[in-house]
């Protein structure tokens, strides 16, 4: 890994965290391409590795949101606890499909996120009221 790759990685990580804290969108959608482009990971490995970063970021985010009174903990925990079947199915599928198919699918997800964000941007006032 050279300096450029390291700096790129740190920058993407920072950006992912800031947008996560600011917009409530997860970091994964930025972590994955960051890991692919700057650290040379294959799509599947980038996705898997992204999840490692997502856990502490979500934890810190959830903690702060809880202090603002925005977390209904019981529902959140229930959803988490009920997710294993879905997680297994998703992971199994990711491991079964060709790399190219996963890349294209992920790119489609990014476009969908972009669409949702654009709609949201057009709806919102310029600065959030306190």
């Amino acid at each position: 890994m050279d300096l450029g790759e390291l700096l790129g990685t740190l920058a993407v990580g920072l950006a992912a965290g800031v947008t996560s804290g600011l917009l409530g969108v997860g970091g994964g959608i930025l972590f994955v391409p960051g890991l692919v482009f700057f650290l040379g990971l294959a799509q599947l490995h980038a996705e898997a590795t992204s999840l490692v970063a997502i856990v502490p970021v979500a934890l810190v985010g959830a903690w702060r949101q809880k202090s603002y009174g925005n977390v209904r903990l019981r529902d959140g925990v229930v959803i988490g606890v009920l997710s294993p079947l879905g997680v297994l199915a998703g992971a199994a599928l990711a491991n079964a499909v060709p790399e190219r198919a996963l890349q294209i699918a992920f790119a489609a997800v990014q476009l969908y996120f972009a669409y949702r964000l654009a709609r949201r941007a057009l709806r919102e006032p310029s600065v959030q009221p306190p």
Partner: protein
Amino acid sequence: MSSRLVRLTAIATVAGAFSGLFGVGGGTVIVPLLILWFGYEEHEATGTSLAAIVLIGLLAAVTHGLYGNVDLLKGVLIGVPALGGVVAGTALQQRISTRAVSGIFAVLLVVSAALLVL
């Protein structure tokens, strides 16, 4: 099973699948459904979603780890600056135009998608 539990299960399963398949948290599934099906207000949905994502992400990370897909060092490398970013981002919420950030982020995602595929 109560209808509430059925719906929570549906959300959990789809979000989990999204997470396992794409390496994201699953929030895009959880947030709109909490609003639509449970009448959550947007900030509550986002906050609650994050709590769920901690668990979902953990399960998904472990599952992929068992498949041998995880590079722990690189995960830490990209995760540490992100932690700093989250703290900064939540603090900036009142001062920055989230509208502008959303717009920039959207453009970034389109560019990234193009780079990935082309």
